[in-house]
């Protein structure tokens, strides 16, 4: 199986590669459109700031390619947020795969949310073998509202989408690559899609 992790200069993607390695999969880091199109599975990561990440995607033309992918795609953290319509972070337009907006947490809670929180209302094969109320590791200041495409929710100042799915596109706000055995199970499930 050919798994690619889109490498467009945004953040710590080594960790995702290592997480697949622990599952005996050699994932490839690349921004080469041909390799991405040919892959069986595509991981779209992202850590950092939305606007500069989007600019980097545009520079390599990946903003056109990603929304047209037909194989299973997993957006992680900022990757999931960039798959949405738009984000308040730098008033950035996203790729529009998920029909929902990304907002900043209110200052009634500490921002960023950093740490382990539970995932609930699990509604996808992505969560096979993962129970309600399991913990995932999250680090983020912006969140995705609840919508039709929500397949998991988390509560931090309000209930928001911690995972999304539309057709072959999946997005998770948490970091499965850093979420111990539960995160590993999710990555395994993604590989089995």
């Amino acid at each position: 199986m050919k798994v690619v992790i889109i490498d467009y200069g945004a953040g710590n993607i080594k960790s995702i590669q290592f997480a697949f390695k622990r599952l005996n999969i050699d994932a490839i880091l690349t921004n080469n459109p041909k390799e991405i199109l040919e892959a069986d599975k595509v991981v779209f990561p992202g850590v950092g700031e939305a606007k500069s990440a989007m600019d980097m995607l545009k520079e390599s033309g990946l903003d056109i390619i990603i929304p047209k992918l037909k194989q299973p795609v997993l957006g992680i953290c900022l990757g999931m947020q960039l798959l949405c319509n738009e984000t308040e972070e730098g008033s950035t337009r996203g790729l529009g795969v998920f029909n929902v907006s990304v907002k900043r947490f209110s200052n009634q809670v500490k921002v960023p949310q950093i740490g382990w929180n539970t995932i609930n209302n699990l509604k996808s094969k992505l969560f096979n073998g993962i129970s309600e109320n399991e913990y995932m590791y999250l680090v983020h200041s912006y969140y995705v509202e609840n919508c039709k495409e929500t397949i998991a929710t988390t509560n931090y100042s309000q209930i928001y989408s911690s995972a999304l799915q539309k057709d072959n596109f999946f997005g998770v706000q948490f970091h499965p690559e850093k979420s111990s055995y539960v995160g590993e199970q999710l990555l395994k499930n993604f590989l089995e899609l």
Partner: protein
Amino acid sequence: MLTKRIIPCLDIKNGRTVKGVNFIDLKDAGDPIELAKRYADNGADELVFLDISATLEGRKTMLDMVLKVAEQVNIPFTVGGGISSIEDVEALLKCGADKISVNSSAVKRPDLINELSKRFGSQCIVVAIDAKQIDGQWKVYLAGGTIPTELDLLCWAKEVEMRGAGEILFTSMDHDGTKDGFANTVLKKLSEELNIPIIASGGAGSIQHFSDTFQLGKADAALAASVFHFGEIEIIDLKRELKKQRIPVRL
């Protein structure tokens, strides 16, 4: 619900953990990778590696270690000690560190915090602050608590937040090593006046101390070294007791 985090801290010198550890069945108690895996399996929520190597050679070894931890450990970790430039941070993140922490270098040149958070995002920039109470005033200290400054703890903490730190790791030099409990009064003040997470450090001696720093000190996370290294407190027992006291923890 977001849980309170328990964070073991490992001091690293030339790629090896210093301070002995007495996990009985570890083949090599000085091997940071083996220790890190052990902590991750035992329920640690994150790890902090503090590089105390003084030489360039030692620092290079640190990068190798970071790479190995990232390869083998499935929970987040922070690397601190001697970081003073964008290049330092870039190298560590490239090797798979999730967050980095800066301390003295940020006091010497506060713009570093802005530069780092702009370049890498606030979420991976931890600012460590060591402070001590002098005549009732909390003052910031540098270089592992050896050099006093004129900086007031609360002012500096607020400035650090404004400049883009994602988290503060606060160590009370007055409490560090005492095993007498964390500096909860000032921690509570920090936590209430700032809007970023606060990691409490310095003073852990018993399970109740952790409970106190979460409940009285309003800390978001608690860091300790020796109580974990010497097996005085098992993380799993600690978390069970915290849960019993209705403190949210990942179990």
